[in-house]
């Protein structure tokens, strides 16, 4: 199973020590379960595949996508609806996931994480030896 602890609000990255204050948003995600895997789809517009960092530590899967803040020379911002920032989100992964085979693809700014379910251990028969 996947759980996560966050709301859809913007989160400020308190550990970020960089000089520029860069907003960090939590990407909206859909999570669905197929016969063989859990699939996560996360919207991260403006992020390309080289700007995504996915790490798995213990039972936490962390995703971070960085977005380059656009700079406009000789241009004046007249209307802003869209706040620009990085994306970050963490998920708690259960033991029923085959961690070695987690895969990620990024297309059109949508990250797709496939978390295959672990092969269930075959039922074993245990022979009893006479002592």
């Amino acid at each position: 199973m996947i759980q996560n602890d966050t709301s859809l609000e913007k989160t400020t990255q308190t550990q970020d020590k960089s000089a520029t204050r860069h907003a960090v948003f939590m990407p909206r995600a859909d999570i669905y379960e197929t016969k063989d895997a859990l699939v996560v789809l996360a919207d991260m517009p403006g992020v390309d595949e080289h700007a995504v960092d996915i790490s798995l530590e213990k039972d936490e899967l962390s995703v971070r996508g960085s977005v380059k803040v656009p700079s406009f020379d000789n241009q004046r911002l007249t209307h802003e609806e869209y706040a620009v920032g990085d994306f970050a989100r963490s998920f708690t992964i259960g033991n029923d996931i085959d961690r070695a085979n987690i895969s990620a693809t990024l297309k059109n700014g949508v990250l797709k994480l496939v978390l295959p379910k672990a092969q269930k251990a075959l039922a074993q028969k245990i022979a009893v030896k006479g002592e």
Partner: protein
Amino acid sequence: MKLNEGESLHRSERQSGSFVRSIKLPFRADADKSSAQFKHGLLTLTLSRAEADLPRKIAVKAE
């Protein structure tokens, strides 16, 4: 999102469907000199201001 048989949705935050928007511009745009780019889910529109709509200086003649 379409789910096949045997699949279930655990969390749904994203929206699906088409995106539609009309924007009124502060000037007329020259369609021949305008361009659009779609990359990584971001649409960038560059709309060139029509020649006729460029600001003009009006000379003041002495009387």
